[in-house]
């Protein structure tokens, strides 16, 4: 693997993981009564930008390298479903995350302290933030299963 694709793969993973850390901070931030809106704005924006960066890095790696070099290795190996199921699912489920994170960011940024004044809105946003974290963890696990199958 050339240095570019190596860095793209590492970047995709670490940027995504850092995004999940910030999404977790967002979620924990929503648990507080009252929620610290400034903290939520910063962490939700960070998460959104990190997911966008992970999207670009991972996307370039996937389109230009994975299909030609890694996919054949996995399909020829003992766990071809790592591509057939896990990668196929992951590359599409991943697309939900930046969109959901974008909504969380917009909501915290524009609603501000209204989040604390409207419990139903806060609860619904908390659930959305939880789904971002859950999908992030799922994607990470799928990525590790895919990487593990390549020999």
């Amino acid at each position, binding site marked *: 693997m050339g240095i570019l694709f190596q860095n793209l793969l590492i970047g995709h993973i*670490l940027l995504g*993981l850092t995004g999940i850390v910030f999404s977790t901070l967002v979620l*924990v931030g929503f648990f507080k009564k009252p929620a610290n809106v400034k903290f939520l704005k910063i962490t939700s924006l960070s998460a959104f930008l990190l997911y966008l960066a992970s999207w670009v890095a991972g996307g370039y790696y996937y389109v230009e390298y994975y299909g030609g070099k890694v996919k054949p290795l996995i399909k020829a190996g*003992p*766990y071809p479903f790592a591509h057939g199921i896990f990668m196929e699912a992951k590359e599409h489920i991943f697309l939900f995350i930046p969109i959901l994170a974008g909504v969380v960011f917009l909501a915290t940024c524009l609603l501000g302290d209204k989040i604390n004044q409207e419990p139903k809105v806060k609860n619904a946003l908390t659930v959305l933030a939880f789904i971002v974290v859950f999908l992030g963890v799922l994607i990470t696990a799928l990525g590790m299963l895919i990487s*593990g199958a390549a*020999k």
Partner: protein
Amino acid sequence: MYEILVTIHIIGVALGVGGATVSDLLFFKSAKDGKIEEYEFGFMKIASKIVWAGFAVLVFSGVSLFILARLKLLGPRVMYNPGIWAHIIAAAVILFNGLAMHWKVFPAFEASLGIPFGKAEQILKNRKIIFTTGAISITSWYFALVLGATRGFGLPLSWILAAYVFAVVCAVIVANVIGKFLMNKFKQ
């Protein structure tokens, strides 16, 4: 690079396991007088932050070790190791359990500072969650520690997970029995 990452991983273990242990001990110490004081809650919050910091260090160093293995194309024989995946599953449990604690346990404590347990509405209402999440936390941390040290004894994943579930269930039962005893003691 491998040695550096392993060292960082061990530091994460020390912070995470140490923080979780101290956090549980702090709770039982503060429970001795039947109420949680503000300064005791302050220490628990610090311990919680140490646990989260340790967890973050563990996750990043652990994933970095995985990346190293991937770049070397070590393949499923190494990267599908049952001990490693049981480790990862325990880490996921620690994460979601930790979120549950921040959602229910810490707010219950914060709402009950200085109030005797027998009269602390939030603690009485959330008693089962408090003791269950505490038990899951400490069991999961030590289970992950043992897995890391032993690589799962070469056992299949199903056996390791069965042992984990068994350990968690036992811990939850014991914790809730202790919790019920404590609440009854301070209700009088």
